[in-house]
């Protein structure tokens, strides 16, 4: 609530300082030059884990890999995922690695425009320079698709990108991916993935009326109204345990989609498994499950 008030105050402040200031208010930090050599396989793996391929490939219409165009119906209007192929005009072919780093970690385009948080960049903020270099190397292998993704159809005032600067000021938080000292490496690896790359909270944590996650009091408490009418169940460890999940069962579900009742995932989670987690290593799925099945509140 405090943040909504903060946001409201920000809006009120607008009247005083003037819109112009906000429109030209520069955001983000210029990344230092990245000169590391990327590993394509590692980058492709991270792209899988992070959902780049799942969200930026229109599987429904058998679209080309990473050519974007997947529609996301939000309460504020329709968004389409971007073309991330190497096409210089419609994709990211003419970007520098530093621009790429800023887009992924900070959610800011090469033109300095903030992205809508439907792009889950808040989870990627702690990606290392090596992670970025690996991703960048992998993206260089994507065949160019010379076709623009459809334009967003956001209702006023949400089509005004400067509004996102206020949103960022009010709601943007660093992801809680850092290791907790004293916990075993598997648990900490799970934390790194769950709170970062695999961005579970994007769907499994509820959002306030401005689309920001209620991380402090509703972390993993589920979200009854996902874009497109889907629902995400609670995945806090107590709920998972009460629904017969175990570490092994959960790790196995991330590979096969099979739930403890013998059902198979559908909806968004089916997509997550089929386009994402089934390609992870056994060890990483086990790590994700280990973390989720344990008490990690306040972490």
């Amino acid at each position: 609530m405090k943040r909504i008030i903060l946001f409201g105050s920000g809006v009120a402040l607008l009247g005083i300082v003037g819109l112009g200031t906000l429109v030209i208010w520069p955001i983000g930090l210029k990344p230092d030059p990245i000169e590391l050599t990327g590993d394509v396989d590692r980058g492709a793996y991270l792209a899988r884990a992070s959902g780049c391929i799942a969200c930026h490939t229109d599987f429904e219409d058998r679209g080309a890999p990473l050519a974007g165009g997947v529609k996301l119906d939000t309460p504020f209007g329709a968004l389409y995922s971007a073309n991330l192929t190497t096409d210089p005009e419609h994709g990211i072919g003419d970007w520098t690695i530093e621009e790429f780093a800023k887009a992924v970690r900070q959610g800011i385009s090469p033109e300095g425009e903030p992205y809508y948080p439907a792009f889950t960049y808040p989870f990627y903020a702690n990606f290392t320079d090596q992670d970025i270099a690996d991703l960048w190397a992998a993206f260089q292998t994507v065949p160019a698709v010379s076709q623009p993704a459809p334009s967003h159809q956001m209702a006023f005032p949400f089509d005004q990108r400067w509004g996102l600067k206020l949103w960022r000021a009010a709601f943007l938080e660093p992801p809680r991916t850092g290791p907790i000292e004293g916990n075993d490496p598997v648990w900490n690896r799970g934390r790194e993935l769950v709170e970062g790359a695999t961005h579970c909270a994007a769907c499994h944590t509820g959002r306030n009326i401005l689309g920001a996650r209620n991380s402090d009091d509703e972390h993993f408490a589920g979200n009854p109204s996902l874009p497109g009418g889907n629902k995400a169940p609670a995945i806090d460890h107590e709920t998972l345990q009460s629904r017969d999940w175990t570490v092994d069962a959960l790790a196995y579900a991330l590979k096969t989609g099979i739930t403890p009742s013998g059902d198979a995932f559908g909806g968004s989670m089916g997509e997550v498994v089929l386009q994402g987690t089934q390609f992870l290593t056994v060890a990483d799925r086990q790590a994700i499950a280990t973390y989720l099945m344990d008490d990690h509140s306040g972490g």
Partner: protein
Amino acid sequence: MKKLTVITAFVFTSAAFAAYAHGGATGIVKERMDAMSAMGKAVKAITPMMRGEIEFNAASVRSVAKTIGNHAGADLTELFPEGSGGAPSETRDAVWTNWNEFTELAEQLEVYADGLARAANNGMMAGTQSGMSSGAMMGGSSMMGGGTMMGGGMMQGAMTADDIAGMPVDGAFAMVSQVCSACHTKFRAESK
């Protein structure tokens, strides 16, 4: 005005029927729900085995594969006549607007179940809990891993029964389960 009254009455009556039917599905909807439950039970029965938690038994796998096979292909699609959607059914209209793909998945399930039955004698993959790990799939040093992962949507990488039959049984089972999940993802409304 009268027309409106009639429509309103109709809407309320329909809603009442829908509410009534929700208590227990009947007819073809119940039939397909029962078929799905039978497959779910079968899957549940051998999942702990496929995870290496209980002792492996080839006969159980064959029996489960047979159950799935019997409910797949045309046996599955014939339970989805046009116009049988709506509550209490969880079927999405996409089944009928995208009938070809629905049929393909149902047939794929039958083929994979056949493969699973024949893979039963192969035993479990040594050392790991599931067959295809990412390492193998990610090869080829490109984002696409040689096209295997990314080609043509969900139907990508459709295998033959012989392919499946050649896999360790837990890998074959994972392939079958992913068909279940692929179909649910596209064609089942999520109620929970």
